């Protein structure tokens, strides 16, 4: 079958440094000066490019099949956005080629081409035509767009008078009604309030189910997991791996930290808050068999062990653990300052402190751990997202089924009973 997108040895180089810095422009004077000094530089044997090369993408090859939803993950600067820019033809590659079969609609931003002075109606047409819709197409979908955006009353108001929520809704509504064969989406879900994000996500799901090819870049791993079949992981401009979404995401988490096997060095952790003294040195996650783990099954216990080195003895060390979803929403927090019976007596400035999280009622997914370390009165060291772990699916209800992830991060036991006799009494 003909691939929807086929990327071959793609490379993109930017010149950084003097003269042609990335993101800056030259002035005529600089250019003239460079041209004038070129023979001199050649005499001195200097190489042609005075600036350094920066490869935003290097040697990237992959294929996307028609109808596939491909997620793209990677840290900032990994080359994701450059890839999308090349695929949507905004910029050209330095090497390699891409073959695209089908009309590409790219959504690197919502509201591109919106003008604050124009009314909602005018902006729908403007933005639609920028995104590649024909006027007839916009006419046909106009009512749908307006009702999706919920701005019926304000159609003839300039969008500069819109609330930011309305603005974003309208912008996304136009984009969401784009119907290309291939859709390229970059982080657009990172706008708007939670409700709207949910709506956008729903729309994305519809789009991906309608058999269109979708390329989806996001930092939101939960979105990627729920939308994508396959996933690419980029790092440093290279494609590290592509494969089934869950596998790649798991490997991504492994690589996104300094160590594997559930051990994380904390001395220089980037999640440390300002004002913290770096007392916590490491965190290790262990299962009940004392093995370091990155994964626990649903309903298994997890022990968080924090090694610390303090300048002087901390008499009553306190460890707070907050477990958050991959979206950053806290699920629960524990702290032995609040929970009586765990006043620990420590006589050494360096030791390890363990907190055992009883069998976790968490749904499958990735979770982050924030750590709060202190004494009986104050926090000394706080590290956000110090470590992460994955909860894998288990048949905890014995039915072979689990509630959908949209039902929340907690798997909670519950009981049901039928109360026919009560109903009869009430109606009697």
């Amino acid at each position: 079958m003909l691939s929807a997108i086929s990327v071959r040895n793609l490379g993109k180089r930017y010149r950084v440094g003097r003269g042609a810095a990335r993101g800056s422009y030259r002035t005529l004077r600089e250019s003239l000066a460079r041209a004038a000094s070129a023979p001199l530089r050649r005499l001195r044997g200097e190489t042609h490019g005075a600036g350094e090369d920066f490869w935003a993408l290097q040697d990237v090859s992959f294929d996307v099949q028609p109808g596939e939803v491909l997620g793209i993950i990677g840290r900032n600067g990994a080359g994701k956005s450059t890839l999308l820019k090349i695929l949507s033809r905004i910029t050209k590659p330095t090497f390699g080629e891409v073959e695209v079969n089908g009309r590409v609609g790219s959504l690197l931003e919502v509201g591109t081409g919106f003008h604050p002075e124009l009314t909602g109606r005018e902006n729908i047409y403007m933005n639609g035509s920028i995104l590649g819709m024909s006027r007839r197409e916009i006419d046909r979908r106009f009512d749908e767009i307006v009702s999706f955006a919920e701005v019926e009353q304000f159609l003839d108001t300039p969008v500069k008078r819109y609330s930011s929520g309305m603005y974003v809704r309208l912008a996304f509504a136009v984009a969401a009604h784009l119907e290309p064969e291939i859709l390229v989406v970059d982080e657009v879900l990172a706008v708007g309030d939670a409700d709207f994000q949910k709506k956008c996500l729903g729309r994305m799901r519809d789009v991906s189910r309608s058999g269109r090819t979708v390329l989806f870049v996001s930092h939101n791993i939960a979105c990627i997991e729920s939308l994508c079949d396959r996933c690419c992981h980029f790092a440093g401009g290279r494609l590290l791996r592509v494969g089934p979404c869950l596998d790649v995401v798991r490997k991504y988490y492994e690589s996104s930290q300094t160590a594997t096997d559930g051990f994380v060095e904390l001395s220089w952790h980037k999640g440390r808050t300002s004002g913290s003294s770096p007392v916590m040195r490491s965190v290790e996650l262990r299962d009940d068999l004392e093995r370091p783990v990155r994964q626990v099954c649903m309903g298994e216990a997890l022990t968080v062990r924090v090694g610390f080195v303090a300048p002087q003895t901390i008499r009553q060390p306190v460890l707070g653990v907050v477990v958050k979803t991959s979206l950053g929403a806290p699920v629960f927090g524990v702290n032995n300052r609040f929970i009586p019976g765990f006043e620990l007596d420590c006589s050494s400035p360096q030791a390890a402190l363990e907190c055992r999280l009883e069998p976790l009622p968490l749904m499958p997914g990735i979770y982050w751990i924030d750590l709060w370390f202190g004494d009986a009165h104050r926090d000394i060291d706080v590290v956000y997202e110090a470590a992460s772990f994955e909860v894998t699916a288990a048949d905890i209800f014995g039915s072979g089924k689990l509630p959908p992830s949209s039902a929340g991060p907690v798997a909670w036991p519950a009981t049901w009973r039928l109360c026919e006799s009560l109903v009869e009494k009430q109606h009697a």
Partner: protein
Amino acid sequence: MSTEATIDSVSDTPECHTAVLGGEGQVEAVGPNMLARTLIRPPTGWQLVNLRELWRYRELLFFLAWRDVKVRYKQTVLGAAWAVLQPALMMVVFSIFFGRLAHVDSGGLPYPLFVFAGLLPWTLFATAIASAGNSVVGSERLITKIYFPRLAIPFAAVGAALVDFLVAFGMLVVLMFWYRVPPTWGLMVVPVLVALFTLAALGVGTLLAALNVAYRDFRYVIPFLVQLWMFATPSIYMNTEEGSGFRVQERVQGSGFRVQQSDEPLSTNPKSKIENPKLLHSLLALNPLTGLVASFRAAVLGGPLPWSMLGWSSLEVVASLLVGCLYFRRVEDSFADII
């Protein structure tokens, strides 16, 4: 390390015949499965203008121009009247200073009409190159976020200037009625001349737009250039070669019409004679707008068309269009990276 990457070699199914049009990387063709096929490749240097693609994006071009026009007059009290007012006010100013005080020769024509007929196409050209020159830099968000033929941006800016021109042309018609200048067959040439002005503006405008992206110096060069060019163009004064062609208009001597007496001599005003007209002439003739403005005035006000000048100007227009568009196409691939 792309070992895990599934590299399926593209098996080009034999029934999918896709034509390769030009080696510049955007290949459009429709296979039997009706999928447009695009190849994205590194830039190859000079490339032709993809007219077919521009045509496909004509609606976007229209919307961009429409947005420019719409936005320009939003929240203004007078709205599109500004399109008329700008050249009209300039006409008043020039009539006072050049017509009344400096007695610049206008070939026997009423100076306000003479200057307006010259200013009108000049304003079209000047606004078009100024706004086209800044258009690409001003559309940074569009360029870094979405693909479309980049030429659409300066083209749309020129289109918006054209709309202003058409509005202001109404003013010229009014002036002609007021001064009783009867329309002549020369008016038939006006659309061609307007097209030439537009093409000239497209050529210069795209060149400036492309240069402006790489060298922001042009932000300051453009207003200066426009001003300088205005004085190098016989829009507010008369090119002597052109002037001799104008005859006193045969006024309609009908009952209700006011007959204008022209006692003044038709020959060039001695005060405005220039020391070395030959050199200045050849310099003026290099300016493509000299021929265009002279032709426009002749066409509207009924003088003989300076065909040789017009021919030369047309050649220059085509050349500037080629240079502008080709240079633009050459550097447009880097716009998103350096803007």
